[in-house]
């Protein structure tokens, strides 16, 4: 016998998480769909998810060379790419999942499923790109005969952190975009600005002492530095404040993102 489902204003939380489990396959299917269609009718296909970070890396490496920026004693391209990896994942995941509800508005207004599935599956798609670029980083390391230190075992922790940051921000932006479409225009600027506000071409240790504490409050800073610290080591230092700010920041982001999204979800179909 199937349990009785009760529909009332403000339905219970437990039911929601059960449904989320029941619709776990939809989560994969949506990610699979987005991945399939993204490169339809392109010539190089999936290679784009490699070409994009590669070109960005080349441009930023050139910028770094011309400006004689410090690269912590490792080849500039390796220095840039190890930070670009989490940053690109975060920025694409944030903008894709931010837009996801609006692009899937036909689903949201016509069928029931926990809406959380939609932005979450967008993050998953970006994560596939992240893994592909990650493989390229390995190739790059072979090329430069670079052997990472034992600190690399901490890398999964930072991957988990950036994943959490992407989900948390994605949820916020997804819910806000449903209500205020303005966020479709705001997010690209955030991404552009974020590239400079995060230590992608810069090194945190070279940020002016006066501003460093403020700079470290950005949870992304700690995560990116964490990537560099665990992959490259050497002069790439990881400050304790950064790590604390990142862990606390990500927990807050995910918790508040879930809370806000859940609160908003009830009326989403009426508003979209």
């Amino acid at each position: 016998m199937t349990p009785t489902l009760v529909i009332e204003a403000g339905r219970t939380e437990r039911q929601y998480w059960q449904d989320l489990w029941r619709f776990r396959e939809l989560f994969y299917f949506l990610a699979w769909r987005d991945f399939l269609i993204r490169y339809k009718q392109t010539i190089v296909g999936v290679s784009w998810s490699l070409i994009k970070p590669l070109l960005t890396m080349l441009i930023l490496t050139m910028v770094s060379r011309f400006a004689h920026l410090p690269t912590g004693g490792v080849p500039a391209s390796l220095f840039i790419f190890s930070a670009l990896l989490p940053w690109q994942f975060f920025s694409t995941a944030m903008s894709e999942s931010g837009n996801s509800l609006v692009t899937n508005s036909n689903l949201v207004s016509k069928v029931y499923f926990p809406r959380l599935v939609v932005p979450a599956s967008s993050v998953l798609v970006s994560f596939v790109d992240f893994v592909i670029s990650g493989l390229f980083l390995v190739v790059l390391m072979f090329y430069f005969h670079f052997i990472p230190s034992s600190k690399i075992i901490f890398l999964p922790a930072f991957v988990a952190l950036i994943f959490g940051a992407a989900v948390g921000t994605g949820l916020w932006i997804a819910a806000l975009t449903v209500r205020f479409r303005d966020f479709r225009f705001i997010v690209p600027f955030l991404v552009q600005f974020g590239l400079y506000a995060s230590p992608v071409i810069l090194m945190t240790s070279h940020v002016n002492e006066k501003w460093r504490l403020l700079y470290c409050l950005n949870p992304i800073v700690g995560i990116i530095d964490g990537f560099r610290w665990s992959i490259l080591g050497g002069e790439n230092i990881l400050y304790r404040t950064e790590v604390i700010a990142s862990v606390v920041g990500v927990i807050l982001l995910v918790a508040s993102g879930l809370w806000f999204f859940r609160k908003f979800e009830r009326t989403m179909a009426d508003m979209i």
Partner: protein
Amino acid sequence: MSDIAISVSNLSKRYRIGHANNVDWGLRHAIEKFLRNPFKWWRNRKIQTEDFWALDDVSFEVKNGEVLGIIGRNGAGKSTLLKILSRITEPTTGRISICGRVASLLEVGTGFHPELTGRENIYLNGAILGMTRAEIKRKFDEIVAFSEVERFLDTPVKRYSSGMYVRLAFAVAAHLEPEILIVDEVLAVGDAQFQKKCIGKMQDVATREGRTVLFVSHNMGSLVQFCERGILLEHGKVAAQGPIDLVVKHYFSSAAKNAVWKANPHDAFRPQKKVFFRRVELLDADGAPSTELDVHKHFFVHMEYEVPRAFKPVELSVRILTTDGAPVMTSMLSDCEQSAPEIEKHGVYRATVRIPGMFLMPGSYLINVAAHAGAGEVFDSLPGIFGFIVLDTGTNYTKYQHNHHMGVVMRALDWQDELVAMRNGHEFPDIKIAEAI
């Protein structure tokens, strides 16, 4: 286990609608209003909306294995009810308890992606409708066979004809195995033959497999054929419930009672449309509102509509249907070029179409009116707005008792009839048929 599948009690749904001066929902607007006067913003943020009760204290029960038809005019709250039942949106007050797995089909092909192949879309659509991968795999061949698109399984559905697309979409939905199925008007698609197949499948689902079905349609023919009980919604309230034929009768009598339709002044949705109807009337040859019309005389459909903002030409259409939902004819404003109004100014417009006498066979009909942009976007549509009766006041057909058996339209055609050869004893003279014609 009780035999009640769905129990709805005191269900209401309120929509908050901003006033005309408050329709701008952008972020800039929200910030600006806050910055201008934070205190005023805080006080006014609730006041500047108006309540619209799409559903108002609706209660009913559906037994296990019952097929329930939901009838009502546009805006009566049918779609809202289905949306709440399928958990797309939450009710404002009230309570529903549902016993069993629910699948709802509010639209055929929800989530189909044009770039994906038929095969991929079956999996995707199945997952969206709540099937597991294993379930889809098991039913895959059955779905493909039902949809009749075997040959195109690996073609992107964007290259499908619209008929194939709809067939595939329905096939996936029809093979869901929920205990409770909620269907909205999906059968109004596809060609006649496929519609028949769909109805057959639905009947199978309901009768042979004993599932509970909630069915919303404007097609009274399929409703009567398909459902046992019905609910009539009017302005968000239950106006009648009981055996389907009684409810359908109630619907017709209430539709025929008034030949004048006026936009509900409390309906805050309608005025937000690009074009909307304010008033529609069915007038007899003398210009008096009536739903009982003389077969010998012409009658009019008179529409008053508003275009709130200047706009490209608007297309109006009037469709006449038989009571079982088959279209008899559709007439468009653009059929008659010289009378198309210049919709370059916003304002209120009036259009009248004259339907000739001695054209519709005596019997009962329904009228749909709609405003749209050419063949594209529909701005406002009022399906089944009037039911009317064409009265037999003595025609050549009067001698036949059931006029509809003779067809739905009448037209005096030219007949030629002449003697071509005299019979000569037992022999026919040799006549070439072609010559005779």
